[in-house]
């Protein structure tokens, strides 16, 4: 979508229409209700809204789909965040004895932001995206989707466009919702290959033998690499990027 079509100033007029005609309340509720298997799972879920003028409200919670609908149509949020399922109703958290109000479960969510790839795309930067660099997102999705399903055994994945310049993946399996903080970071690290800040030249170091996760991921990358890097980004056509590529090649090969 061409950037010029979107005008933030028109949101106050458009959002009410959106929330009355388009927002999928039924599916939203059906998802978060999880079949009513756990008592009060929906009622104890925290929502937070970002309203006009960057007003941020937390600890919203609802007892029914219709309550959620009415409130959202009243507030017309610019942004919606789904929080965790708590031990009590979030909108009553102030009445709960301090220390007792706790987050119990939350889906495992991955957030991929295009700016994380700024060092390997030259067509856009910051919040801009185009069909050339969106390929990076496609690659990321395919890699993650395979790993989450085949390696970790997760089955209920929801992939959504974040609204700006990236995507979110919500892993909704029961096992995922119950994961501890350490487990979540372990999963993230298993899936991470690129390590290092601005001061690191070679951010990916592979050793022999290659772990099956990396092997499978490489298969995905190879399908897109030529078109993305050589044709669309033209990394070998400009001195700047050519130098970066050369810096990654091991010394003994250059000799």
């Amino acid at each position, binding site marked *: 979508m061409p950037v010029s079509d979107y005008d933030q100033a028109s949101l106050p007029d458009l959002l009410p229409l959106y929330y009355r005609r388009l927002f999928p309340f039924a599916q939203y509720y059906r998802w978060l209700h999880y079949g009513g298997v756990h008592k009060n799972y929906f009622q104890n879920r925290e929502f937070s809204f970002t309203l006009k003028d960057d007003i941020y409200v937390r600890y919203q919670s609802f007892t029914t789909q219709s309550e959620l609908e009415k409130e959202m149509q009243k507030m017309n949020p610019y942004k919606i965040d789904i929080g965790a399922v708590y031990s009590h109703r979030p909108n009553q958290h102030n009445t709960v004895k301090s220390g007792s109000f706790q987050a119990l479960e939350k889906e495992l969510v991955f957030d991929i932001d295009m700016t*994380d790839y700024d060092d390997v795309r030259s067509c856009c930067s910051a919040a801009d995206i185009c069909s050339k660099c969106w390929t990076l997102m496609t690659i990321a999705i395919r890699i993650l989707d395979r790993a989450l399903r085949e390696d*970790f055994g997760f089955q209920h994945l929801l992939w959504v466009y974040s609204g700006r310049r990236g995507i979110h993946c919500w892993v909704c399996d029961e096992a995922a919702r119950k994961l501890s903080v350490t487990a979540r970071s*372990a*999963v993230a690290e298993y899936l991470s290959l690129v390590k290092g*800040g601005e001061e690191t030249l070679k951010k990916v170091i592979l050793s022999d033998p290659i772990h099956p996760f990396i092997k499978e991921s490489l298969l995905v990358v190879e399908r897109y690499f030529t078109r993305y890097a050589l044709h669309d980004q033209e990394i070998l056509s400009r001195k700047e990027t050519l130098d970066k590529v050369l810096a990654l090649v091991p010394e003994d090969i250059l000799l």
Partner: protein
Amino acid sequence: MQFPSRRKRLINNAQEEMYGQPIQFYGQPPIENISLSEFETFAVERLKLLKTIENLGVSYVKQSEHYARKLESEFKNLHFPYREVDDRKVQTGPSEFEKRRKDHISHFILRLAYCQTEDLRRWFIQQEVDLFRFRFNELGSKQKLEFLHRNNLQYDTINVEEKKTLLDKLVSSSYAVSGITVEEQDFYKVPFQDALDLVRTRKVYLKAGYVYIPHQDIITIVINDFRTRLSKALALTARSLPIVHSDERLQPLLNHLSHAYVGQDYSIQKNVGKISLEQIDSLSGKSFPLCMKQLHQSLRENHHLRHGGRMQYGLFLKGIGLSLEQALQFWRSEFIRGKVDADKFDKQYAYSIRHMFGKEGRRADYTPYSCMKVILSNMPSQGDYHGCPFRHSDPELLKQKLQVYKVSPSGINQILELVKGMHYQLACQKYFELTHNVEDANFSLNHPNQYFVESQRLLSGGVREPKREPETPHKTKAPSAAVEVPEVIEDLDSFFQDA
């Protein structure tokens, strides 16, 4: 007469039941009466042991020969069990049973002292896990199996068919596993949540939520289990603290034990407002550790820092004495020079700065990151400038930077050697020594704010006192000689004498 010898045998059997192995999961608390003096001595000695473990862990690669030898001599000195002994050999000193009993009781006493805060718990768990890992590795393979069965860790093994199908994957994913290993050893199918360390480092084959672990690696699982159990136990212990603290005999001892660990965390701000914003540039050149210097420079150059950098640097500045107002002014004026306008700053960034100072949200007063935290957590990625330069920078780039800061070539080599050996804090300490022109830093670096304080002290001509006053919380030192441990003993004992 028959009776005495039979009674002795019965007692021995009972003892064997209780303490059948030199290590345990500490599932059951001790249920006997002990004297107050035993209570104190046991606790203090275990604390010494744990502090040795911490110090050795920083200076040596764990499980290396040096590490093992030093730790073993500590076990011997303090009379703690660490391996199976031949009962028939003549023992001098406490019996194996007595050592294991001490091990049992002292662990539970320290739980009382170390369950109170997140930081204390984290430290205690880390040292106990390292202790456990060392002692478990000392067990023979038969004893390892015995330990597993005693403690109900039953995981399923995979059959020959499955092994054949997975052969390639197992070999290419597991550390030090060859085709022969797969054939000969049992492989266990373990839910991935029970083997997080192996998953995190991709040292294992993961399929459909299960990891496939050779028998030789079952230690990691055991350790995870130990860690989880201990963590839960500490949380429970914390709830019964009020009752414990109401006993006047125990309260002072427990308080002292937990303070003995905590090095300064620089969370209580001294010197608030003594630093002016104009001084920061020059201070960064003279007294900032390399990590903060890097962040400061990047902030000045790019007029921006990403979240990880803002946290690490922002909390450091708080630690050196910047007030909230100063901090807001500092960040705001810098960000405005970049792409952020004043309005956007107030909306998006000011909140998180106030958060750092405990004025928002949970209102927790966040503590500046220690070296351990900077090195181990919050890894920098593309666009980041935080982390520890000795750990996270390319050695080539690090070398160039040190040259720019006029470190001598021999000094640079010394630093790079330490970096190669993964002694990042020692490398930073060496950097301190070289840039301040001193032979010996006379402190053991474990916190960026400590670097700043020591640097300022040196530059203002203060004499560095080698001895610590009892009120100052004891800092951990990297032992270069056995001298370190006696110092610990001295401090703790002298406190008891005063009390």
